[in-house]
């Protein structure tokens, strides 16, 4: 590397991003003690926000970094919930069942990746949707689920309402922190560089000696696991499992919205997008059809006029990066003249 002789510097952490990292730690600690401060309604809603952040970050990892655009991620959301119901039915503690169900989703996604990753672009996107619809039908055939009748996770009722709400909140917080932290670490190391190289040009990455299939599989399984966690958490908070609700394509539509608006391929973008979606849902959700039309229009406008999303625009304009997953070139003022 010519790092030593050049007057310019390659940086990862800037002063801003160091401060941001410190702020993240403080915010997370603050969030952890919130159940003692806030009322039941706010805690419940915040847990939903954490689930949205997980979903956005996972879809972003898949599409923004892995270049794998899928419209079938609701399959893992549904399976996370379904496996939880199934495992809890055997007498397992519901919270333990949630963890095992998420792992099971990751296990299931591995053989699926062997087939699905052979498909490219649009084929992969639609292929995932087809498999998702198929999975939904197979879950419907389960005698326990009884078609669309579904099954509720009533073993959760063994926990007192307050304790139950707080546990779900903390689980969601831990899951979000763990998944985002894991993704951040992954994107910063060697694999992260491979992932982004594959997104930019698959053939070129392959010719540089990157194991394309292995890297893609890793991100596919990670995204499946994360969304499985989201499904299990959503079920814990809603109790009711009706297959139609969980295997609905609307979940993937929400993920796409959050990532498009926040900033595709930007680590901070997915989080920002999830917060924006959460606020829009809170304020305008009661408008019904117009709310959904509004979501569609906003996503459309963003993809037309701000394809990098909000965070992408902020990043290009101000050159800031709070969660640095890449490298940045810092050029001292005097060398800019030549």
């Amino acid at each position, binding site marked *: 590397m010519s790092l030593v002789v050049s007057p310019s510097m390659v940086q990862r952490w800037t002063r801003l991003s160091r401060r941001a990292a410190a702020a993240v730690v403080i915010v997370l600690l603050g969030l952890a003690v919130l159940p003692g401060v806030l*009322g039941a309604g706010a805690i419940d809603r915040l847990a939903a926000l954490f689930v949205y952040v997980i979903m956005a970050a996972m879809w972003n990892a898949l599409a923004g970094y892995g270049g794998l655009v899928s419209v079938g991620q609701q399959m893992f959301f549904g399976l996370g919930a379904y496996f939880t119901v199934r495992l809890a039915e055997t007498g397992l503690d519901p919270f333990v069942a949630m963890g095992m169900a998420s792992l099971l989703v990751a296990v299931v996604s591995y053989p699926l990746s062997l087939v699905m990753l052979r498909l490219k672009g649009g084929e992969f996107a639609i292929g995932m949707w087809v498999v998702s619809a198929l999975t939904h039908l197979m879950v419907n055939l389960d005698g326990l689920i*009884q078609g669309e009748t579904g099954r509720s996770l009533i073993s959760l*009722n063994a926990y007192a309402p307050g304790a139950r709400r707080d546990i779900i909140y903390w689980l969601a917080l831990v899951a979000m922190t763990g998944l985002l932290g894991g993704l951040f670490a992954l994107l910063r190391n060697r694999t992260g560089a491979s992932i982004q190289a594959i997104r930019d040009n698959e053939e070129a990455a392959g010719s540089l000696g990157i194991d394309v299939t292995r890297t893609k599989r890793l991100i596919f399984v990670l995204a499946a696991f994360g969304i499985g966690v989201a499904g299990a958490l959503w079920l814990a908070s809603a109790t*009711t499992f009706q297959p139609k609700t969980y295997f609905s394509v609307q979940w993937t539509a929400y993920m796409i919205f959050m990532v498009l608006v926040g900033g595709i391929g930007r680590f901070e973008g997915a989080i920002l997008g999830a917060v924006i979606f959460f606020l829009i849902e809170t304020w305008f959700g009661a408008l*019904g059809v117009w709310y959904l039309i509004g979501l569609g229009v906003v996503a459309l406008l963003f993809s037309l006029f701000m394809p990098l999303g909000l965070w992408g625009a902020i990043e290009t304009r101000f050159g800031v990066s709070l969660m640095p997953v890449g490298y940045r070139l810092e050029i001292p003022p005097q060398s800019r003249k030549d």
Partner: protein
Amino acid sequence: MTKKEKPNGLTRRELLATAGAATAAMTMGIRPAFATDTLKVGFISPRTGPLAGFGETDGYVLEVVRKALANGIDIAGKTYAVEILDQDTQSDPSRAGQLAKDLINNQAIDLMLVVSTPETINPVADACEAAGVPCLSTVMPWEAWYFGRGAKPGEPSPFKWTYHFGFGVGEFHKTYVSQWKLIETNRKVGVMYPNDADGNAIRANLAPLLQKDGFTIVDPGAYETGTTDFSSQIALFKQEGVEIINTFPIPPDFATFWRQAAQQGLHRQVKIVQVAKTGLFPSGVEALGNLGIKLGSAAYWHKAFPYKSSVAGVSGTELADGYEAASGKQWTQQLGATLSLFDAGFDALKKTPDPKSKEAVAKSLSTLNTVTIAGKVDFTSGPVPNVSPGPIIGTQWVKAAEGAKFPLDYVVTENATDPNVPVGATLLSYNG
């Protein structure tokens, strides 16, 4: 708002002073006196989206109930003001659950009322059970409510806070046998049960009962909702020579199925077409055109029910006429069903010494035995705790008399599940 402040509105200073006082009062645990005297009742139903047919009349029923309760209710010697917080699920089960949590957590409701379809009721009932808030519901088969939410046959009820009244498989059985014996047929029944909540419950529980009563069941198997080609089922029904059709489809599926059946001539051989879940409301039947005339149906309420609303004091006919006058639309069976939920809910509140105690309200629900505009609600003698089965009355859609306001008339043809309801017409053969 950019408008200038109205002279009689609050000034900024007044607003700040009020807000400050209110905050101070809240932090010191002082509540304004009126707060403790208000009963808050949550009401969740599908008013828009695919299930909007169910919620169409709810606005009118709410108006009637609010008017009747405008001066509050007297409970155990004390007068309470009543606030009904109504919410629309937009036919989305996720939203139903979230609305329920919002009403429970942020509005501190004392009782939840929820009506129409498993997609609406189950998520709300689960949220109430989770939070320990009493909840009463009606209008869905009780089996899907009880077993679909995780209760197991033969085991004690896992539910402490949630109660449901209304029809189940047993009532459908009685009604169908009574209705189908009204006409001479070969007793061969072609059934179209989808792979969903109602379809599976009906296939597992109703079909064997019908067989015991001497009906031959011709079942081509469960179909998925949204199927667009029913030729194989139609061919089987024609080959077997069925004279009765029984189906539990969603409206678009029935329209597809029955149009194809008509094209292939099945409609000429059948004498009874008994539909459930579809054909509940006049608008849906009118949309089928001539094929909708003489469809057999079953009603969880009819304006001929001889009861009065305990909350609003109106009879069935008064309720139906009031709705027609106010909206210009034909009455539907949902009017009485929704009002019966308010009847039963407020009766439970009235029968408790302390309606602000959730424990007391739940206890009152568990021993509730009352008569609503839709008939008896009795939780002391149900098939399982938490459930009170209700009537489902055999009916038929017929062409209205000349000069009537609306093209179709909905007549009662049998009353096996509630003999107090007067039978108004004889069942007509579909192909007759």
